[in-house]
Every structure is written in C-alpha cells, then in structure tokens.
C-alpha cells in the first residue's frame, strides 16, 4: 500500500525542458547526465509533486483532469514515483 499522505521533493539537479506542441518534457539529471522523457500525464504528475502535493492529492487531480478511474490514476502515479525515486529525480519530502 502506498501512503497517500506522502509528499516528495523534485531534485534541484534536474533541468526540465518542455517541448512546445508535443505534450512532453525532457528531464536532464545534471549529476548523472541521463535524460528522461515524460508524456503529458507524467509532466503533470511531476509538476504536482514539485508543488508539494501529496500522493493522494496528485491522484485526485489526475482523475479529474484526465477523466480516469482512481485505480488507474493510482497505478500511474505510483509507478512513475517509483521510477523517479530510483533515478534520484525525486526524493521523499
């Protein structure tokens, strides 16, 4: 079970680049020099986490904004957070 009250901090070592008109962004980790591409939903989750939203708040907003089920949103948010943590793009707040 994930803790819906958990919040995170986005790494200050990440440069985020939005691609105009393509609904995606590129993350560059300055420490590892690795690049990552996020799709539109991923970018939104990244933004919400960066603003200090808890997992529960992120899931609720994704459900509303993208008209997806709570279960689907929870799965997407959870998987992305795990990936971001693994790559040190995100840390626990």
């Amino acid at each position, binding site marked *: 079970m994930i803790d819906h009250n958990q919040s995170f901090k986005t790494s200050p070592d990440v*440069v985020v*680049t*939005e*691609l*105009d*008109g*393509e609904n*995606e962004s*590129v*993350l*560059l980790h*300055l420490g590892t*020099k690795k*690049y990552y*591409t996020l799709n539109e939903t991923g970018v939104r989750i990244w933004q919400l986490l960066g603003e200090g939203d808890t997992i529960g708040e992120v899931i609720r907003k994704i459900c509303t904004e993208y008209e997806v089920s709570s279960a689907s949103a929870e799965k997407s948010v959870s998987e992305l957070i795990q990936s971001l943590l693994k790559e040190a793009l995100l840390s626990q707040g």
Partner: protein
Amino acid sequence: MATLLIELTNRCNLNCRHCFDQRHGGHDDIRLPVIEKIIGRAGEHDFDTIVFTGGEPTLHRQFPQIVRRVYEAGYRFGFVSNGQNFQKIYPQIKFFLDRLETITFSLDGVTPESHDSLRGDGTFTNLLKAISICVAKEIPFTFNSVLTAHNIHEIELLAGLAQQLGSGGVRFGQLMLTPAAMDHGLALTPDMINTVADKIEKLKESHTYPIGMGPGFYTALLFPCASLQMAELTITHSGHLALCCHLPDHGSALLHQDSQLDLNHVEFEEAFATWQGAVQSYRSTKKIYFNNRGKGFAEHLPCWFCQSYSNQVNWLKAYANTHWFRFIEENNFLGRPSND
C-alpha cells in the same frame, strides 16, 4: 564537395565577454534575394552543404523559411548556435531535420558559473534545454568550445562533459585576438596556445570520442584552412563573399570592400569567380613570402598571416607591453605581408 558558411545575421541575443570586438552586436540580416541567389547556383559549383552562422543565426527573421528553402533545394544544412533560442525555433524547423548535418552549440564552461561568466546568466541552463530537445528527438549536435584564459584549465572536463551529454563531438577553438579579448584578460599567450594544443592532442589520442581543433593552432601546412583549400566559402550577412568567418567585418576586412564580391549587385558566378581569383592571389603571396623567408614559429600559427594580410593586427600597437605585440613585432607581422 564543399561547404557554404552563410552569416545570416550580425544580431545576437547574448553579449559574450569573449565575442569578437565590434561584431555580433548589430541589427542586420542577410536579404532573402541574396539567399535565393546562393541557393540557386551554388550547387553547380560543388557546394552541397550550407552552414548558417551569425551572430545568432536563428534570430534571422526568416530563419524557418530559409531552412525550408535550403531543404527544398536539396542541400544538407547545419547551423552554429548559442542554444538560447532553440526551444522556440525547434517546432518551426523540425520538419526539415532529415537533411540536418549537425547543430554546433557553443559550450564554454563545465558549470553554470564558468559558462555564464562568459556568456551571461542562465545561458548554461538554456543550452542544456536545447540539447535535451536534441537528445529526445535524436537531432545530431556537436559542441564548439572557445578556449580563453578563463577556461583553459577546463579542457579535459569540457571534453568529458560534451561526451556525457551525448554530443557527436567537440571542437576546441582558440580565442581570436581582439582588443576586447585583451581588455577582458581573456587572450591566450603564444605559450598558452602551445600548451593548449598539446593538451588537445593528448586528449585526441586517449579518446575514441571525436575531439577536434579549430583553425589557428600550430601547423606545418601552408594552407591549413578549408577556405584556403577552396572547400569552404564564407558569405557575410551583408552579402559579401569573404575569405574566412573570422575575418569579415572587423579591421580592414579582407576582400570585403570589393563590389565584385557583393551578391547584392552581382550574380553568384561572378562573385565566386572573383573570390577564387582572390584566394589564388592570397595563396601565391603566402607561398612566395615563405619561400623567401623560411618558416619560423610565428608562421606556423596561420591566422597571423591572414590577419596581417588583411591589415588586422595594427591595433596591437596600443598594447605595446603585451606578449602578443612583441611576438608580432619580432616576426614583422605589423603591416601587410608582400611577396617581395
């Protein structure tokens, strides 16, 4: 096959401390009829690649249209950029990138502090954004690093960073000597240039990653540059054919005043023939000059002969207590060399 270097504009969105004096601070773009003239006929003279320079070439008001015209005419193309405008320009040129040779971005430091101190606040981050797009979209790019007294200690780190960031290679250039370079304490001394060249050679030997050296370093070749081999032709933002991208528009620029080289007034064939004649004349002068004099250390630094030939070193008289003044004076490079 040969390459055209077209200086699209002398405008720039930066004000770099190491920029050539009195250049790149202007407000002039090359005219589209001149571009059309070039595109229409250059292919018949073996030019198959067009590289846009500046100033910052992406600031030309019709940059996307020019890229499109070059693409439609069947040329491969590339451009040299500081990367600050790429996020904006990319959506407008992305349809033509299958004929892109490479984008050469300027990288002059390995940290925001180092890069930004030469190019301005925030420029390092904006550059990283530009190359992030390139990596995500598999757009080929390389780096050009201008070595100055400020960053010569970063050569190895610059090569490492360029490789880590996914570029196709890095080329090190030396800062051309100008009053601004002297005033800002950025000029390399002759000894520094030799040390730098040795370091780059060692890096090249120890890396499989492509590392290159720009023109101007010590060479045994009499005509080391692509332009002197007539494999590269520079056209300035004012529409003039020139000998070298380093020479136009400052000092008493070589070839620049000749109306027969002005594409605003003559056709490409006529200007190109005049240019070929001028290069041949230059080559003859240099060959006879060195046959008569022999070659000393100074003559192995090829830019000095060109700058002297185009009357661009006399300003050094105002810097009489510097290494370079003594160097130029000792080697009789004050005043235009002749073949007497």
